[in-house]
């Protein structure tokens, strides 16, 4: 067996030193009546070629984003990742290393985490960031719990434009940890008035997504002011991190905590995971921030170095008094993010954001020109919502039959809101070509024509 180095001779010699007659003796600690006598009811071992064949067959049953005009977004985005990124993250010392608990032999990991934390703080316009969370949605849930701890209140208000999965994660966490949530109605192109009206003296935080999940943009400044006036915190969620290359940062608009999905930089779609959560906040709240944090220090020879720090917030020391139960961060995905962003640099990120926006503007113009199709979000970054004459999910299916993956039907995310079922959310990125746009336009026009 290619992954098991011991030979039978080795095993015999080792048993002899242990003083056991057979390997079975070493398992006598397992009560006899629960010891398995035979093998599990599963196939026997397979060679690499065989495993490749089996899994390739499964992979071939899926339609990759690169193989056709592709416009699916809504929390995960198709971008081009430079070849260097994947090459570097596969280096043994990054791929197969452990959490940097022994900093003397993990300065590689610790330094890139320190750089990552700085990049995240800069992008979000905040003072401090952690070394990543599992993903944007769990980061959002943790941010709400953090706001409850800081304000000593227990009620979160969720704007209607918060991604329904993120909303569900916050609701689930709250329901079972004794907190309450008020989730406002999802309305494409909804304004801040309703959000501001929803804040009262019992509110610990208001969570607003920007751009929202319909793609719309919001000035968060009045929401921040309204929240702070009542002693509440503003949490901003960003699902398309490249938008931060073109838009004012949440920190600039008064956010207290910013959470984001970092998948767009360095990380592929991967059917939903692994992704990387970004988490940033004000310096005064750093001791309430969940997750791992990397800090700068010096070693015994006076050289600059890095260590995981402020660990007493974490579960392995505080145990039941920890700020959360988190153990891992999203290490390798954070590395991919930071490498991609280092390659882009500020100039590159801004240009990338411009390209995304230009693609989306071209697409929105092309599609809203079709009879019966209405653009619901006049201001957007690289994603927008269309109202179509018919059931959004069916239209998306029919577009797929014509070789275009046209976006996400809102009905899939909001099955209990039938008034939203004629809406589809459409994304375009730097990967979207003129030919893709033309293909979508003609496919949609055909699909709608046949509907008449």
């Amino acid at each position, binding site marked *: 067996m290619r992954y098991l180095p011991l030979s039978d001779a080795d095993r015999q010699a080792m048993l002899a030193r242990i003083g056991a007659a057979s390997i079975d003796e070493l398992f006598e600690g397992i009560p006899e009546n629960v010891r398995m006598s035979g093998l599990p009811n599963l196939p026997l071992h397979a060679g690499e070629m065989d495993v490749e064949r089996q899994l390739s067959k499964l992979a071939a049953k899926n339609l990759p984003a690169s193989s056709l005009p592709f416009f699916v977004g809504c929390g995960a985005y198709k971008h081009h990742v430079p070849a260097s990124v994947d090459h570097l993250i596969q280096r043994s010392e990054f791929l197969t290393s452990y959490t940097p608990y022994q900093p003397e032999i993990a300065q590689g990991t610790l330094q890139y985490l320190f750089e990552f934390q700085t990049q995240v703080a800069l992008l979000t316009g905040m003072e401090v960031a952690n070394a990543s969370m599992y993903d944007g949605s769990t980061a959002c849930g943790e941010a709400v719990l953090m706001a409850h701890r800081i304000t000593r209140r227990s009620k979160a208000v969720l704007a209607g434009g918060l991604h329904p999965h993120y909303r569900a994660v916050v609701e689930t966490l709250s329901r079972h940890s004794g907190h309450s949530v008020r989730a406002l109605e999802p309305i494409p192109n909804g304004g801040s008035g309703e959000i501001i009206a929803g804040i009262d003296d019992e509110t610990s935080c208001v969570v607003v997504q920007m751009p929202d999940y319909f793609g719309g943009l919001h000035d968060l400044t009045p929401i921040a002011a309204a929240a702070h006036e009542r002693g509440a915190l503003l949490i901003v969620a960003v699902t398309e991190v490249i938008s931060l290359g073109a838009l004012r940062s949440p920190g600039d608009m008064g956010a207290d905590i910013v959470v984001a999905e970092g998948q767009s930089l360095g990380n592929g779609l991967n059917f939903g995971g692994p992704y990387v959560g970004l988490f940033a906040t004000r310096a005064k709240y750093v*001791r309430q921030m969940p997750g791992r944090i990397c800090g700068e220090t010096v070693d015994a020879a006076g050289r600059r170095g890095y260590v995981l720090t402020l*660990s*007493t917030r974490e579960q392995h*020391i*505080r145990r039941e*008094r920890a700020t959360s139960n988190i153990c891992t961060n999203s290490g390798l995905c954070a590395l991919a993010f930071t490498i991609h962003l280092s390659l882009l640099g500020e100039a590159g990120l801004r240009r990338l954001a411009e390209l995304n926006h230009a693609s989306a503007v071209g697409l929105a113009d092309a599609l809203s020109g079709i009879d019966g199709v209405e653009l619901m979000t006049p201001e957007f970054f690289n994603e927008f919502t269309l109202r179509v004459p018919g059931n959004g999910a069916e239209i998306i299916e029919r577009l797929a039959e014509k070789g275009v993956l046209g976006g996400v039907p809102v009905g899939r995310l909001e099955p209990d809101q039938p008034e939203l079922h004629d809406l589809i959310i459409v994304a375009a990125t730097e990967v979207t070509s003129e030919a893709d746009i033309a293909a979508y336009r003609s496919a949609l026009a055909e699909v709608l024509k046949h509907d008449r």
Partner: protein
Amino acid sequence: MADIKFTEAHEYILVDGDIGTIGITDYAQEQLGDIVFVELPEVGRAVKKGDEAAVVESVKAAAEVYAPVAGEVLETNKELEKNPALVNEDAEGKAWFLRIKLADADELSQLMDRQAYDSFLETLS
């Protein structure tokens, strides 16, 4: 006349009239290692005997500091927020954590005096 008492959880309380000054003992700071952060309660808070009154953090551990007796928090030691290292330097002197107004002086009789505490420490080693 000031009188000092100790708990088995290594807190001390220095009593002067009905004011008690609370901190952790020298033994406790040594066990914890380099202190990096101290979390102090709000002035005005009422604590019962055994309530968590403060938290002291070192690099590798975090420990609760419990109120040895009941009282109302009058003052906290701001110096510790700026200089947590003071706890290592002078735990039983300058690095006091908080001052309370005693609610029930009778509770003091349940605590150890210096001699009893020193004997208690010997049983630990």
